[in-house]
């Protein structure tokens, strides 16, 4: 019997996808953990495992996060996104921006682009799955991802320029946004 429930499997799915799902849900709600929790429970109740588990989870989390939208202020949305991003140190490869700045830039994107960027970059979904998530074709999902990346890059460059100017002016540490 193709039973969807298996505790070890649920645990591994959670370990693999929960963090990205929380980041994804944080776009709309200030309680993304609840959305992820409910989606995982719903997954555990499925009689048959979905073909694309990650895509299925992103879809359910998205619906739940949108429906439980608690009119979180933009500031709280920045914080929710920033709180779930952690910069890792890789020798010789230092990002030019920090998690706060990235969160602000992400938040400035339009919904479709932001969803595509998060789902692709941190959710590691394929464009076909992103297309299903957003209700568009894979090609359209790719275009939204590409546009989102370009907009994000421009926004972060602007932030970096502003930050550098402030640093020069204050001749001290660069303040975070």
């Amino acid at each position: 019997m193709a039973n969807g429930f298996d505790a070890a499997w649920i645990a591994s799915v959670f370990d693999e996808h929960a963090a990205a799902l929380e980041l994804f849900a944080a776009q709309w709600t200030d309680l993304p953990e609840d959305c992820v929790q409910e989606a995982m429970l719903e997954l555990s109740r499925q009689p048959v495992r979905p073909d694309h588990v990650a895509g299925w989870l992103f879809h359910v989390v998205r619906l739940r996060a949108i429906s439980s939208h608690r009119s979180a202020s933009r500031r709280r949305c920045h914080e929710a996104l920033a709180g779930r991003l952690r910069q890792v140190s890789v020798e010789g490869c230092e990002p030019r921006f920090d998690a706060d700045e990235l969160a602000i830039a992400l938040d400035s994107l339009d919904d479709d682009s932001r969803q595509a960027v998060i789902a692709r970059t941190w959710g590691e979904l394929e464009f076909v799955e992103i297309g299903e998530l957003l209700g568009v074709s894979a090609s359209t999902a790719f275009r939204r991802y590409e546009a989102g990346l370009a907009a994000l890059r421009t926004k972060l460059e602007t932030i970096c320029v502003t930050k550098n100017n402030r640093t020069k002016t204050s001749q001290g540490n660069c303040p975070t946004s």
Partner: protein
Amino acid sequence: MCDEKQSDEDLAGKLPDELNRFANELGLFRVRASRVDRDQLLFEAGWAAVPQNPLQTAVVAARTLRRWQLATLSSSTAAVLLCALLLMVLADRRSSDGPLAKTTNGSLQNVRSMSGSKSSIEVRQTVPDKKSIDRDGTSRDSELSTAVAGRRVEVSRFQAMQLALVRSIDSKFDDAEIWPGRVTTTASGFDQTSLREEPLRPYSLMKGENSQRMIDALTEESRL
């Protein structure tokens, strides 16, 4: 699936180099989630899965009945008891957030506290109401002699069956076999039960501590 992957690679290959480098830069940021949520999820997923399989509940109840070796019960009485136990479990699961955590069933609460406590005071409070025994169709001579913490108390057969069922459910979260050699049939045809004395751990603690054990137990459960 292979076509989808191919098409995904094709699309990804169309990304300009500068955006590709920028995407790699974004990859220097990782996402994180709480471990506490994971434990809670596994706990809730496990219990959410239990009522999905009514057959499994029936198997647990049937096993319990066998353990009690229904020497003095007719098959029809056994069937009635089985149905009552199933209804009790289902009603309890519907009326509470967690398993037996917020039960509104007074007698079950007593049995539960008896099963989980060393205190003989609590046990002594579970002396059955004779009227309710009669209403349940269980005669006076079906009372059990139960020893807890060195004291003997009288409990009805029905309460004892509840206790057995509760313990069967609890056994999913415990390493120890619940009833190994605990039930013996006496010459008078009835059971003498010595209850385990170590207290069961509160579910709130299990949430945080026993996720791995729960994984093992539930995985085993899902195989049945």
